[in-house]
């Protein structure tokens, strides 16, 4: 049995054309590659400090 209220929560408002720019910046997430790069940079720093 579907719970209407719960199902309704799954629906998100659609972005509108005016919101395009904000949405572009908001979706500029960090991906796994970037994460890996940060990790690699952190390790390199630690090595240099040692």
């Amino acid at each position, binding site marked *: *049995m*579907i719970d*209407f209220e719960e*199902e*309704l929560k*799954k*629906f998100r*408002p*659609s*972005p*509108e*054309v005016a*919101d*395009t720019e904000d*949405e*572009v910046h908001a*979706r*500029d*997430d960090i*991906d*796994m*590659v*970037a994460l*890996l*790069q940060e990790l*690699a940079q952190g390790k390199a720093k630690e090595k240099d400090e040692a």
Partner: protein
Amino acid sequence: MKCFRCGAVLTGEDYCPSCGTDVYAYKRILRLANFYYNQGLEKARVRDLSGAVVSLEQCLRYNKKQIPARNLLGLVYFEMGQTVDALIEWVISSGLYSKKNLANDYIEEVHSNPARLESLNASLKKYNLSLIYAKHGDLDLAVIQLKKVISMNPNLVMAYQLLGLVYLKNEDWIRAKKILEKSLSVDRNNTRTLTYIREAEIHIRAKYDKDGNRKRLKPREEAISYQSGNETIIQPLHATERGNKFSPLFLAAGLILGIAIMWFLILPSKIQSARAEITSQMKGVSEELTSKSAGIDDLNKQIETLERTNQEAKQALADYTGQGGVLEDYNNLLQAAESYLNDPDDALSAADYLEKIKTTSGNQISEEFLSLYKFLQSNVSAKAAEIYLKSGIDKYNDGAYEGAIEDLTRAYDLDQDSDQALYYLAQSYLKTDDKDKASELFQKLIDTFPNSTFKSRAQRYLDQGEEDNSAAETQQETPETPAAPEQSPDPAAAPADPAATPAPEQSADPAAVPADPAAPAAPVEQPATPEQPVDPAAAAAAEAEAAAAAAAAQAAETPAQ
């Protein structure tokens, strides 16, 4: 593949040949990203758009710079009606890699049709509004808005889903299923859509079970379903082609039966209803015609009445203003009055005008008119009568009988008490050989004036045809002029005039003289009317008349002496 630290081209080793960085994890991340991209591409190809979205988003979580995956994600969003989501992905893609990027073409394509973009954007706004309605419990408003959204943006899957959900909430299972199934043509394997459809089907089945329609659902229950790629195949278990050699026969029989039902049941009722409608229309038209005819009759009657009134008005106007009308009578009366005032002795002019007056009674005549008319009549007519009488007698004596008839007729008309005028008028007719007229007038004289001095002579003519050839005399003449025997120019005429010297031997009626003692009174009976003293001129005229009457009376008395 390049090293994420130094950018050197990587080899098959897990270390960068240039900087020696461990690239094992990096290579695995990129492989996973590629895997998800390929998966997304496969799903998109079979129109499993929601599945493709999931795969492509997963790909981008591993490598956000996977340009083909981002472009494809935008394309899938666009196909699902989420235009702005698509634009966002393409803009990001273009920002990451601007050269020779398909995203630029997509963006340009979308912006090339601003009206279409505006329409799609409006549909998204309405979708957001309907979502708000649904969250606030205004489900009817949400349904209305979502229907508009679907008409504007038929690919917006989430609108179908939300509408289906609202229908489910309203327990409108069939509509929910129907609308949700429509969205499957866009996104064939959307989990949410399928979940809702299943929910709807459960309720529909339960309803049929409750209503005892199990038979109708049996084939569905006995069907087997299986997944073929992204498609769900449902196949009835006992689906067999019913082949029968009598099928055409049954078909023909059914056709004939249908025609018969149509002919005997449906057609007569249709004809009857059509006839009833025509009859009703004809009745309406007939009633309208009748009412209009009645209206026309009324109008015709009104026209007749108005025409009659118009004629009466015209006639009344003519009576007043036309020839012989009252207005003319008034004019004649005024002219008679003017003539009398200018010269009271000129009675003939005034009498002429009075004679022309035709209407002397009735509503059209005022009291003032009548009073003035009577006054003038009394003052003028007697005098004019005398003048005409004298003139007539003169003409009679001169042998101008036609003129005498004319004047004497006028004299008698003006003074109906003048037996002398009547007698000489009859004599004049006799002289013109109009014996009938003469006899008529003699008889009238005898009847009207039984005491007249002319009665015996009139009677003699009527009885014996004896004509009076004596010269005539006026009774109103002054004492010098009467035809006394010694004053008469014609000695033979004197004895012939009964008013002057009636000879006893000439009279056939011995009693004629004694019988007419009052004869001379006739002229005497023409005194002035009571109105005469009011007008000095009239009074003068009356005095003259009185004098004339006295003279006539004296002249009449002379033979008796």
